[in-house]
């Protein structure tokens, strides 16, 4: 069965602190992994996906197949990073997304 686990409902950090949002997945095969973000009063939008291996807004995520993890990291959090973050996976070649329950990131000044 496909499953995405985000163990933290809320992560609260101070501006300038490092951030790591955890994501573990369960999937037999080679999944595509994504991070979606939802800022206040905005719609859900793609932040990054593992296949592109790029850094968006200072965030990076590395797929660790051994630990079945896809943690999202940023070395120095900004107040504008405060949002709801969802980890998601899909089967290669298919667009059905399986989402985790989300982690709310709160960055305080």
């Amino acid at each position: 069965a496909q499953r995405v686990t985000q163990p933290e409902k809320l992560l609260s950090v101070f501006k300038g602190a490092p951030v790591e949002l955890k994501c573990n997945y369960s999937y037999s095969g080679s999944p595509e992994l994504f991070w979606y973000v939802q800022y206040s009063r905005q719609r859900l939008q793609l932040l990054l996906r593992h296949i592109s291996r790029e850094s968006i807004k200072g965030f990076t995520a590395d797929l660790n197949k051994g630990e079945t993890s896809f943690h999202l990291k940023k070395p120095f959090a900004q107040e504008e990073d405060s949002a709801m973050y969802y980890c998601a996976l899909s089967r290669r070649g298919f667009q059905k997304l399986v989402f985790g329950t989300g982690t709310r990131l709160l960055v305080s000044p």
Partner: protein
Amino acid sequence: DAGVTQSPTHLIKTRGQQVTLRCSPKSGHDTVSWYQQALGQGPQFIFQYYEEEERQRGNFPDRFSGHQFPNYSSELNVNALLLGDSALYLCASSFSGTSYEQYFGPGTRLTVT
């Protein structure tokens, strides 16, 4: 381009009634997916439409049905509403040819009383 649009924004229905939600995809997109997001949960995949056919389906009962029109817009229908159907319903569009990126609409908040 307004991106993905959904209507209505909010809806209140009574248990046992039927509801229709609508979605217009982003310009250039031909695939529409529907998700249900209950409070405090991540979105759950309901089904996906491409070329006016249901292509994939999640773990939802037959009370949930859909349609895609030739202009790629889509409807989600839910019959015999239950209290547990109260949720935010999200529509996402994508282009089948090249991209895995799905663009989400703002959602329709359905409340069943």
